Structures are given as structure tokens and as C-alpha cells.
């Protein structure tokens, strides 16, 4: 199109998108499982209450009017909602696509067939934490492995995209090779993602038995790097040991060779989510992210989502987090990795330090090395 044409009315100067492109929506606070590291339960910020069907349908109408492109349905366990087909019809009617975050156990042929018939499902993410029931069920409860695999096979049978997420913890860090073989070779998945249990929700209660210690983190990083090479990039991560192994290796190389600062280094740039997505809790509270469930920005069907998105002081403060230099923090004083560090996840920073505008200690390379860590 002729880009040089000048519109006769002056457009408003932009800062962020007019409306979010995507949302993560916890459509239920109920779950059939009680996993030992669940971030959702035992979170003092959560209100464990489900909204009626009509509330969600009204909200989906609003999302449609705003041009939202896709929603990720989470919980709790989203497949526990008896009215799920009605909710999906509301999403489809409003010209959106959808995805799920699930434990897989409640997925049957009926709902899988319905989802497939819509043609709008991006993927269903199912959590698998072991190559066998003994490992997987150690944190997720008896029978949960069989349920997850049954769910995955049902989705595959209906031609629905399956995205498996492996959460790495103390009980499965020794099983990573077996997990990769099981998921990629036996189940025939194209790929899978990894992260690790974080100090949130129920995990805080069970931290000693769940969270990786330094030796286990080192083992996980080395194993995942090896498996990623073996499986030619079919193992991915946005957080957890694999991400840390890659990022920390780059940081150490840059520091030791005296390279210039990374383009996003030296400031709290670790999270760009508030610029294109937003979340809704099961009770209808609008929050920046499921990891920041205590930051209530508004309430669906009471507050305009567009207005909240554009004008919420708390959200705009979060968006300006990237301007805060790491040199401001006592925690970072004297650190030679500052030019290459992004401060990582504000959600983890909050649960570990009580401050959102703080680097996450869990992602600190210097601290990891001081505690006898080593870069894989």
C-alpha cells in the first residue's frame, strides 16, 4: 500500500497496542489434581471461586469487540468445566482462537472431537513430568500419569496439536533422558518444552522436596543441553534449567571476552508480556500475569478491558520496569554480569523478595556460581 499517503486526521501517538493480542484466562479454580509444586493453589492472592457461564460469555463478547486474537484457557484444570463447549462456542463466535493448559486427565473423545471440529484450537498443553507413572505421579498424584497419556493419545487421535510441558523438579531430574525418549520416540511428539518448579503457591510448602538444589540444577542443565543436541532442537524452554544453561553460557562468554552490553542487558527487561498480553483470574480479576495474581487491575464485565489495558497505573508501571537499571539494586552491587543480565521474571522476583521491581534472585548467575554452581 502507498505508505507515503498522509491521513487527513492526525493519529494519536502510540505507546502500546490499543488492546491485548492474547489473554490467559483461568476459567476455573477447580482441579482434579493437587500437584506438590502447583503455583495456583495455596496462593494467598487467589480467590478460589468460579464464575458462571454467562459472565465468561459476556467477557468473550468484549474480547471480540476489541480484536483479541487468541485466548489460553487455564485453571485449575480447564477441562473440569462442564460448560466448556458453550464457552468455546462463545470464543469462536467472537472470532478468536484458543489453547489450553491442562493435566490431560479429563480429556475424552467427546470434548476432543468437539475441539477438533472447531478448527480454532492452537494446541492443548499437557503436563508430563516423567517417563513412567512412578516418577510423574510422585508430585502429581496416583493415576495422573495414566490420565495424562490417555489425554495425549485422545488428542492425537483427533488431530489436535499437543504441546507437552515437563516441569523439572527433584524427583524427575534423574529421568530427563527417559522423558525425552518417551515423549519424542515412543509418543512421537514433534517436540516438548521444559521449565522447573518455582517457589510459588503449593511449592512454597513443599520446597525442600521439590525445588532443585545447586547440584541438581547443574545436572539438569548439562543433561538438557546434551539432549537438545541429540534430538536436534526438539526440546525447548522459555524458563528453567535449559534457558539458564543457554543464557548463562552467553553471559559468561560475553563477560570473559569483554563484549559490549547486550541490547536488553543492565535493566529489568526480563519480561515483555505486559505489552501484548494480560490475564484473568478464575474469580474475574484482571491481572498482568498469572505469576502476578496479587496485582489486581480491574474486574471483567465491570471495568473496560481496553481502558484497563491502556490506563491502569499498575500495568503501566510494570511496562516501564525495563527502564530500571540493575545498578540501582544493592543485590546487584559489584556484579560483572550486569551488562548482560535482564533481571528475569518479575513474578519470581516478587515471591522471593516482596518486590516486583527487583531482579529475581533465582535467576542470578553470580549467586548460582557463588553457591558452587557451574556453567554447563
Amino acid at each position, binding site marked *: 500500500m502507498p505508505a507515503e*499517503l498522509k*491521513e487527513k486526521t492526525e493519529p*494519536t501517538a*502510540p*505507546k502500546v497496542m*490499543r488492546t491485548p493480542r492474547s489473554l490467559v484466562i483461568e476459567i476455573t479454580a477447580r482441579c482434579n489434581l493437587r500437584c506438590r509444586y502447583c503455583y495456583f493453589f495455596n496462593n494467598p492472592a487467589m480467590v478460589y471461586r468460579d464464575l458462571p457461564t454467562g459472565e465468561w460469555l459476556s467477557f468473550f463478547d468484549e474480547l471480540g469487540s476489541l480484536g483479541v486474537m*487468541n485466548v489460553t484457557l487455564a485453571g485449575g484444570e480447564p477441562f473440569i468445566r462442564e460448560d466448556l463447549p458453550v464457552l468455546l462456542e462463545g470464543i469462536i463466535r467472537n472470532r478468536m482462537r484458543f489453547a489450553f493448559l491442562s493435566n490431560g486427565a479429563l480429556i475424552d473423545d467427546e470434548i476432543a472431537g468437539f475441539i477438533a471440529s472447531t478448527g*480454532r484450537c492452537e494446541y492443548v498443553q499437557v503436563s508430563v513430568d516423567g517417563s513412567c507413572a512412578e516418577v510423574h505421579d510422585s508430585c502429581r498424584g496416583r493415576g495422573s500419569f495414566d490420565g495424562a497419556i490417555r489425554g495425549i493419545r485422545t488428542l492425537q487421535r483427533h488431530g489436535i496439536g499437543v504441546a507437552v510441558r515437563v516441569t523439572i523438579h527433584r524427583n524427575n531430574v534423574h529421568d530427563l533422558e527417559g522423558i525425552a525418549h518417551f515423549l519424542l520416540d515412543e509418543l512421537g511428539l514433534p517436540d516438548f518444552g521444559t521449565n522447573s518448579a518455582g517457589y510459588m503457591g503449593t511449592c512454597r510448602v513443599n520446597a525442600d522436596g521439590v525445588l532443585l538444589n545447586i547440584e541438581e540444577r547443574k545436572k539438569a542443565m548439562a543433561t538438557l543441553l546434551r539432549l537438545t543436541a541429540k534430538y536436534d532442537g526438539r526440546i525447548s524452554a522459555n524458563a528453567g534449567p535449559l534457558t539458564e544453561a543457554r543464557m548463562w553460557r552467553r553471559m559468561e562468554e560475553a563477560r570473559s571476552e569483554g563484549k559490549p552490553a547486550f541490547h536488553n542487558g543492565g535493566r529489568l527487561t526480563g519480561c515483555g508480556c505486559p505489552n501484548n498480553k494480560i490475564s484473568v483470574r478464575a474469580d474475574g480479576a484482571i491481572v498482568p500475569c498469572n505469576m502476578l495474581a496479587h496485582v489486581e487491575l480491574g474486574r471483567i464485565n465491570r471495568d473496560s478491558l481496553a481502558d484497563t489495558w491502556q490506563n491502569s497505573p499498575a500495568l503501566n508501571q510494570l511496562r516501564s520496569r525495563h527502564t530500571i537499571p540493575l545498578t540501582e539494586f544493592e543485590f546487584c552491587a559489584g556484579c560483572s554480569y550486569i551488562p548482560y543480565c535482564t533481571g528475569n521474571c518479575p513474578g519470581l522476583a516478587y515471591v522471593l523478595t516482596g518486590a516486583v521491581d527487583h531482579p529475581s534472585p533465582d535467576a542470578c548467575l553470580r549467586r548460582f556460581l557463588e553457591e558452587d554452581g557451574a556453567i554447563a
Partner: protein
Amino acid sequence: MNQTDRPIANPVVVLREEFDDWAVLFNPDTADAMGTNPVGVAVWRLMNGKRSVEDIVSKIGDSFEDTPSAAREEITAFVNTLAEHGLVGLELGRE
């Protein structure tokens, strides 16, 4: 029934206008997305199955300053690209 030269926007396609000078056309059935500028947005809004491409070019000329001579070709190419991606159709008319 024959195809006319009167393009009509696919009603399932979402137009997402952003704050800066671009927008996204998104087809939720295929997940295809295409970025466009303010002129493309204006063209999109004019494609109601009643206006010909010629009508649309004329309307654009009324709405934008200094319309270049290549505007007709560019708008025609844009409409054709949208049609190839299933974002617009051509209205059926009676002979």
C-alpha cells in the same frame, strides 16, 4: 452468477488497529495474519461487496492527501493479495 470486481471483506477476519500506523488482519480459521498501514485499513473498510475497486480508489483519493499516481495499481494489487489469502472475496452478481 458471475464474479464481479466488487470485493467484500471476509466477515470472519479480524481487523486489529494498533496505536501506531499499522494494523493486522487476522483470520482465526487459518491463523493467517497480515500487517497493513492506514491506507490498507481504509481500503479494508470500503470493501463491502457494493463498491468496485475503482470506487475504492476514488474514495481513497478523497480521504488521503497527495495520492500518488501508482495508487490504483497498488490498491488493486493489495486487494488481489487479500483475495489470494482468503481475506476477501468477490461478490457474485447476476448477468
